[in-house]
């Protein structure tokens, strides 16, 4: 798409009062959860307007998370790619090693404000589970994390991390035993224990107000980037790239840029074995709209509306839906969505390790893979900003195994 064709909106004030981003989003849950969501929506509105709350949130991001996270110019990798300059927003340097904690801090502060002593969370790769266990320990709350039984196997180190911080990890054996089933189970827990439990949802999906709430807490990524890019390069990037599973790191990066002219944005989904094979986790690239987990959005589903199993090398992107705001941004054309395959992500993973001494998460490696494809096609004076959403320590056993190495 030519830069002048970017549909930059003059006004962008979404979601509306019903939690809608155009036709997407909304509140598709059983009656039993409606009161709790309403309570959360009202409390969040009060908290956002409360200077003391926002000050504490910012204090915690600075002194506990270590924000602002730096932007780094990956000069050697850019040189190797032979085109545009690649800059990395280093969310991997946050406490707990990923962007997830920006959101869990915010939601834990909300939980405390609402007097809830118990928090629950779903997790795929374990990053959101770790970030939830971390803040629960930090604020002295009981924490239960639901994790697909298959992911418990794939991400043993993160399971142990959560336990070290006092959380209970519950393996979920229903359905496909992955992230979507963990989310179902967390919702079931919430509906049962709603009086004293706060559900810390990890991605910018789910019923309203979660997509808005998570976006707002993650928007610090893009807000910092807007300031830092001017400091470092004297201008905003030409292209911003982020990986998209549920889409929380991507919306955190994109949201502050939606009304900035001249900035192309690209969301990269998990292409698995290749979008054409059907074995992937790319609902925006190859799915169609439907209703799952409380919102209307693009989904991976069969002709009968059953949710189908996803495939990705990265547990954190292994999700059949996507945050509703991404569906809206796709349809309006403000953000372009594409996919990177397992192999491409893995190649980018190794390149970044070798050329920059940075081990990226496999999730973030999908965004890197697209940058690797795009950079050589652009002139050297162009800038690509990649959201490096997490570090790859947790993925080392997976990568080693793929290389035939037993650790």
């Amino acid at each position, binding site marked *: 798409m030519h830069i002048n064709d970017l549909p930059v909106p003059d006004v962008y004030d979404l979601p509306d009062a*019903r939690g809608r981003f155009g036709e997407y989003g*909304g*509140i*598709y*849950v*059983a*009656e*039993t959860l*409606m*009161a*709790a969501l309403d309570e959360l929506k009202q409390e969040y509105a009060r908290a956002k307007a409360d200077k003391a709350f926002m000050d504490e949130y910012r204090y915690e991001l600075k002194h506990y998370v270590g924000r602002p996270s730096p932007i780094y110019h990956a000069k050697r990798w850019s040189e190797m790619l032979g085109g545009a300059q690649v800059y990395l927003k280093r969310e991997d340097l946050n406490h707990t090693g990923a962007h997830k904690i920006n959101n869990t801090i915010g939601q834990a502060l909300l939980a405390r404000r609402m007097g809830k002593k118990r928090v629950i969370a779903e997790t795929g790769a374990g990053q959101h589970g770790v970030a939830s266990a971390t803040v629960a320990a930090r604020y002295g709350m009981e924490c239960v994390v639901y994790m697909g039984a298959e992911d418990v196997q794939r991400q043993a180190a993160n399971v142990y991390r959560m336990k070290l911080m006092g959380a209970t990890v519950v393996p979920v054996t*229903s*359905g496909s035993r992955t992230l*979507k*089933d963990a989310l*179902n189970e967390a*919702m*079931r827990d919430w*509906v*049962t*224990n*709603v*009086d004293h439990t706060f559900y810390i949802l990890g991605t910018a999906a789910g019923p309203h107000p979660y997509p808005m709430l998570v976006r707002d807490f993650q928007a610090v990524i893009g807000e910092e980037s807007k300031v830092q890019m001017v400091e470092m390069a004297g201008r905003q990037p030409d292209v911003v790239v982020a990986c998209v599973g549920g889409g929380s790191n991507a919306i955190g990066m994109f949201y502050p840029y939606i009304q900035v002219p001249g900035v192309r944005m690209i969301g990269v989904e998990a292409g698995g074995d290749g979008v054409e094979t059907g074995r992937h986790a790319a609902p925006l690239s190859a799915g169609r*709209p*439907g*209703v*799952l*987990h*409380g919102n209307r959005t693009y*989904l991976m*589903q069969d*002709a*009968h*509306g*059953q*949710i*189908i199993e996803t495939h990705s090398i990265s547990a954190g992107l292994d999700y059949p839906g996507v945050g509703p705001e991404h569906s809206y941004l796709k349809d309006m054309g403000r953000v372009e969505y594409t996919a990177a395959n397992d192999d491409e992500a893995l190649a980018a993973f190794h390149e970044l390790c070798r050329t920059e001494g940075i081990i990226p998460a496999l999730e973030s490696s999908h965004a890197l893979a697209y940058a690797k494809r795009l950079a050589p096609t652009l002139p050297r004076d162009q800038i690509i900003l990649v959201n490096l959403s997490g570090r790859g320590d947790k993925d080392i056993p997976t990568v080693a195994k793929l290389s035939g190495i037993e650790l």
Partner: protein
Amino acid sequence: MARIQTVFSRLKSQQKQALIPYITAGDPHPAATVGLMHALVAGGADIVELGVPFSDPMADGPVIQKASERALAHGVSLTSVLDMVRDFRRRDAETPVVLMGYANPVEAMGYEVFAKAASEAGVDGVLTVDLPPEEAAALSDILKAHGLDPIFLLAPTTPDWRVAEVAKHAAGYVYYVSLKGVTGAATLDIDSVASKLAHLRGQLSLPIGVGFGIRDAASAQAVARIADSVIIGSRLVQEVEEHGADAAVRLTAFLREVRSAMDAARQ
């Protein structure tokens, strides 16, 4: 007159309450479902609720989740569930059938196509668990245009203003979820249900069914004293899980026991 309304008026004149059992369509096998539905009617069911299996049944406990998984493993879809209802209608033209399921299979088929097909198959009501009144207007209007009753859930936590919203869209009966949690959970607190129902009756003219936590003749009898209908789900699905297609005889026997306990409720 619509079948559901006919049932409730007849029962009202007899001073009886409706017995509404639930089973998941296609569990344990698609070929078994119609037989099980007839077995429920033989046991005294006034209305049959038929669960449409969904891959992600967020509001259901483990018993109904597993039933959905078993059905889906046999390739059961909303289309084949409608075929089952059509088949059921060949021998039973009177007992209302209510489909209970999640929004996405209906979304995938299309509201208009679904409503027309469901009406032609002999369905009487549709409960879409994850369509609260805020999201249900479009589907409810189309269902009504095809003579189908949109059934809604009410919860202990539903505030008055939302009861009014439900009243605008609902027809047939409303389904009061008697406890916090998912289907098949815990036991119910009959006194708190009774006081909530008394309050709801001031706001709604539709019959009120009570479900969640009813597991035996005694709890069914207690609910029959305060509600217009008794809804039993997980307990029956458990029977099907344990005895497969052979569950038919057991379902009939169990419901007979429940039925006579309910009919004795007024004495």
